């Protein structure tokens, strides 16, 4: 007697299967590591090139921004824009303190150079947040 059981169609995998809880936590830890030290989130996933580029790029933006005497915002801002700038600057993680340490003479936004420096510093933070998000998604298996 042969087995008459009909062969069912192969079950289609879900389009985006939710990652297990432990994997989510791991991805979150990597994202936080990547935020704290630019490139670390990728380094821990053995994405050497991306780790190096994120570290160098964020570092360069911070050094150039501080070198141009851009504003490194503090928590004691005068208005909402200062607070936004502070949030953006904090995006560089530990490099925020590097920028504070480098800029001993204080900001000088009376010239265009200082203003550009402020943008460089803010961009460093936002770019690092983007990289941390990328590391998070890569760890979840969404993209790499």
């Amino acid at each position, binding site marked *: 007697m042969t087995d008459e059981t009909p062969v069912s169609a192969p079950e289609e995998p879900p389009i985006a299967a939710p990652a297990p809880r432990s994997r989510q936590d791991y991805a979150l830890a990597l994202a936080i590591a990547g935020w704290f030290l630019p490139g670390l989130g990728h380094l821990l996933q053995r994405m050497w*090139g*991306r780790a190096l*580029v*994120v570290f160098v*790029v964020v570092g*360069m*933006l911070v050094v*150039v921004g*501080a*070198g*141009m*005497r851009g504003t490194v915002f503090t928590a004691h801002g005068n208005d909402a824009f200062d607070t936004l700038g502070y949030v953006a600057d904090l995006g560089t993680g530990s490099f925020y303190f590097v920028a504070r340490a*480098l*800029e*001993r*003479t204080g900001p000088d936004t009376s010239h*265009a*150079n200082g203003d*550009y*420096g402020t*943008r*460089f510093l803010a*961009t460093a933070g936002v*770019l690092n947040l*983007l*990289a941390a998000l*990328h590391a998070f998604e890569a760890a979840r298996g969404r993209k*790499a």
Partner: protein
Amino acid sequence: MTGFGGLMLSHFQALLLFAAIISLAFGFLGRRRPKDRISYILWSFFLFLVVGIGIGWLMYPFSR
């Protein structure tokens, strides 16, 4: 550069530096294969320059 904190760049130099740095990051984060990365970096760099210079010229009539 006259000591740290004295980095003076012209507008165009700042634009070039910014475009180069950000394009590099975009290329490495956005693409995986080396060939794709290079073309993405170059394309992104080109667009940064074109858009930056274009906006500069658009603002020119209001600059004085």
